[in-house]
């Protein structure tokens, strides 16, 4: 699959740099276009001035983000590696502070205010967590060579010859802990959407550092099975069976297959028992996702309205500022969770596919950088790509009715200063380290 080797700095290297830069900026531009339509469209006068000001506020945050990115390129690359743990500690402290002194907005105590400026430490936490995990896992490199025996030693296949970083499963425990700490704090803040997204780091980075395919699948498959279970229990059962068998084939350790079967079973049971475990409004939300037409005026409303908005956009859309459905407030949270519906309605298939293409450009560009960076860079890249991918899939999925409504923003597009700055910083992080790696190929592999 590797067509050209870009490992030596050359035209290809600068091309990927531009691809990442251009797609990031264009996605941000999409965000401003949508935000302008929401805040300054025909429905603007019905909105509060605070909402109308959000366009300017987001512009300011974009400026802050540019500053942060600029600054990041001035910091010596070594520092990222060295400061990974302190930064993790700092962001974790912010999260604790939020839990103590934060302000509650829309039911989630996720906001920390410094005077008039409010921010969501949960977003910054993503940087800290990712850095800490990448630091720890890339650090395993030096130890792994001496590992002689492990019950869970990966299969000496062609695949497994790659980085046996995780020669012992116990080595995977600290990164899991790095993730679980903020997840617990976020759940305590009642910010479940953000918390869930953190979990993607675990399979992504562990897989990236050599966790066997079987174990990774065993981690992911219960989630997929549970998701399928919401729509159709029989399909979920089939999926669970297939994944258990697949794991059994790929993975030599029987334990993994047995555990996978256990987890999948728990997931299925969980879906079955969900109505008894969850609060009524959460159950209603899940049911509405599975069958929105059942109660079009009730919980399924958001889902249907967003789908209708996107669907009614057609190929070319209704035109800038002409999105009757989104303008009129039929689509909720249209500057954040449902911003994609605004783009879909006003710019049609052309707009939505262009957004997806830009994400494709960004993610493939980042993967390209990850592939050619050092180990540290690679793990960061894998983390950023999987994080973004999860956001995009869940957000676009819920906008188009493929996913239940979980409050997940669209990276770089959705309104939200902390998220914008964080996402810009995450991209810059990968680009920064990639660039350093390209400049100084002999630089100690981070």
């Amino acid at each position, binding site marked *: 699959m590797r067509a050209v080797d870009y490992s030596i700095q050359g035209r290809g290297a600068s091309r990927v740099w531009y691809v990442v830069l251009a797609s990031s900026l264009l996605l941000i531009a999409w965000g401003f276009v949508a935000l302008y339509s929401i805040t300054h469209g025909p*429905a603007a006068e019905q909105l509060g001035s605070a909402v109308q000001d959000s366009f300017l506020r987001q512009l300011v945050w974009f400026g802050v983000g540019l500053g942060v990115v600029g600054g990041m390129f001035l910091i010596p690359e070594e520092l990222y590696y060295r400061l990974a743990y302190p930064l993790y500690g700092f962001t974790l402290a912010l999260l604790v502070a939020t839990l103590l002194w934060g302000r509650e907005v829309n039911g989630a105590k996720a906001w920390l205010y410094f005077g008039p400026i409010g921010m969501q430490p949960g977003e910054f936490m993503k940087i800290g967590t990712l850095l800490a995990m990448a630091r720890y896992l890339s650090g395993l490199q030096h130890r792994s060579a001496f590992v002689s025996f492990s019950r869970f030693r990966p299969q000496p296949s062609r695949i497994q010859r790659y980085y046996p970083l995780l020669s012992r499963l116990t080595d995977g425990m600290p990164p899991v802990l790095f993730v679980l700490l903020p997840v617990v704090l976020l759940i305590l803040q009642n910010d479940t959407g953000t918390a869930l997204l953190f979990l993607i780091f675990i399979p992504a980075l562990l897989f990236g550092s050599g966790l066997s395919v079987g174990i990774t699948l065993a981690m992911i498959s219960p989630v997929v099975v549970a998701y399928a279970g919401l729509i159709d229990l029989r399909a979920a059962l089939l999926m669970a069976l297939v994944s258990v068998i697949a794991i059994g084939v790929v993975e030599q350790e029987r334990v993994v297959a047995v555990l996978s079967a256990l987890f999948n079973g728990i997931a299925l049971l969980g879906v079955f028992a969900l109505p008894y475990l969850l609060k009524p409004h959460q159950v209603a939300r899940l049911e509405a996702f599975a069958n929105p037409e059942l109660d079009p005026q009730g919980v399924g409303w958001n889902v249907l309205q967003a*789908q209708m908005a996107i669907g009614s956009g057609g190929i070319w859309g209704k035109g800038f500022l002409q999105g009757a459905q989104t303008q*009129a407030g039929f689509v909720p949270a249209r500057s954040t969770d449902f911003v994609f519906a605004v783009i879909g309605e006003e710019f049609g*298939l052309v707009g939505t596919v262009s957004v997806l293409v830009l994400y494709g450009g960004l*993610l493939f560009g980042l993967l390209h950088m990850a592939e050619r960076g050092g180990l540290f860079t690679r793990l960061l890249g894998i983390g950023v790509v999987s994080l973004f991918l999860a956001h995009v899939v869940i957000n676009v999925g819920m906008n188009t009715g493929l996913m239940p409504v979980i409050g997940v923003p669209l990276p770089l597009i959705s309104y939200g200063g902390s998220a914008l700055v964080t996402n810009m910083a995450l991209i810059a992080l990968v680009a920064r380290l990639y660039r350093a790696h390209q400049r100084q190929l002999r630089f100690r592999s981070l």
Partner: protein
Amino acid sequence: MAPEGAPVRLRALRFATALLLFVLTLRLFWLQGVEYWRHAEGSRRTTLRALAVDPPRGTIRDRNGVVLVDTEPAFTVLVTPSDFDPAVIPELARLLGVSDSLLQARYAQARAYSPYRPSRLLRDLSTVQLARLQENLYRFPGIDLQLESRRRYPAGVRGAHLFGYVREISAEELARLRPAYRMGDLIGHTGLERFYESELRGQRGQHFVLVNALGQTIGPYREGREDEAPRAGFDLELGLDAGLQALAESLMTGRRGAVVAIDPRNGEVLAMVSSPDFSLEALNRIVDPRLWRSLNEDPARPLFNRAIQAEQPPGSTFKPFMALVGLQEGVITPQTVVFCRGGFYFGRFFRCHGGAHGAVNVQRAVQVSCNTFFYWLMTRLNLQRWHEYGRQFGFGRPTGIDLPGERRGVLPDSAYFNRVYGRGRWTLGYLVSLGIGQGNLAVTPLQLAAYCAALANGGTYYTPHLVRRMRNPQSGEERIWYEQPRRIPVDSAYFALVREGMRLAVEAGTGGAARLPGITVAGKTGTAQNPHGKDHAWFIGFAPYEQPRIAVAVLVENAGFGGVHAAPIARELFARYLIKSRTHDASARVVSADPTR
């Protein structure tokens, strides 16, 4: 330099990325391509609301261009049930100063009609109501204000039965007339408003607005490019004379009865009054049930249009007709003399009035209203032929005036008697009273007026009509009343004879109270026997005798003798209509007419 094996792991992630983005793209193609029409339609439905724009109802003017009925702007409260929280009804009712139950009922109706379309909750807001509601509108999602119009009667002419009232469409009518009408639409219920409903109303337009999720209007849809403009209704021009009508109304105040004045040259109705009447102003808004009950339960029946619905025996006003039939049928000649001894014996004794008239010919008989002559004449006539003549004069059938609810009266023939008394169980004696307009005979004031007009113009029967012309102010289209008049098959020489008799009746007979200085008036009094109480007084007449311009029928119920109670009213009308010097006098009276009576 990437280490060996690294690309494999990344390739897996790359594959996952590509796959997931591809799935999302497919989903978008499905939503925005395949399902586009379904969603586009759904989106239109939820975000667009069609507001009905009713054109102003056509105006009604009199023969001189005086505006009798027009519209004035009025605010209406609209409710969109799906956006409205019924829990705030008590608060809204307090704010508007109306009863809780009224709003509850109206809301329930609106909800039943359509939860998603705005319906009228309350019409014709007062300035105070409007100001209060406007200030608090933000507190009531689903409530909107709409500028509409209401009926106004600027000329001081009451015309209660004539114009009729408009009211909100009833549930039954709505079921029949949907979708042309919506709940809360006004519809003419009586009178001209009803008869010319489709012409007056025009055609509703549509104004499309975008609404937000709260149901509040955001603005026009596509800058109004899709709107449908309302099409105006026709303005009606009546043959009515506003001054004469107002005078007739004031003359009938306190009396029970009806007045109809017709232009004998073309059948245009100059005035039409039924008394007692009611106030149109009070009925054109949401009607207080108590007022409605009192109007319905009043023994004087104010809602009853006596001018076209009261059926009474014509009494002696029928005699000119009898004379014409007798002459035309050859039963009598102008010279035929009957000797009146104060009555007529036919099986039993039929009384004449005022003692014995002695020898009377037909003209004299009309002048002095000799019963004996006409009793005798009736016994000589063929009932069937008599019936046919009667129909030629418009008796026993609706005149065809442009008003709803006209009654036909009773004009018997042998079939009628067979039906009422049984075949062979009635005799000629049953018919004798018909000769003097009593017995099984009933006419409406309008029928008598039209008959009088035919007498006045020497035998041409015009269908009486109110509207003589209508014009559409938007399209400029004009429609003019045209109907070929009917020539009554009686020689004009006989008409001249009978008209002369009627002139003499006013000059030196029973109708003396209708006499006017300077104008020759012809007329005939009548008294309809009333088995339930005091007799009803009739008078028919026309003037000027030489070239009649007005023919009148007056009915005053339970008044007694026609020459005393009905003829003076006719005289006032002749004077008002024919003598210009009295114009100011009468119009002054019009203005001072108490609108609340």
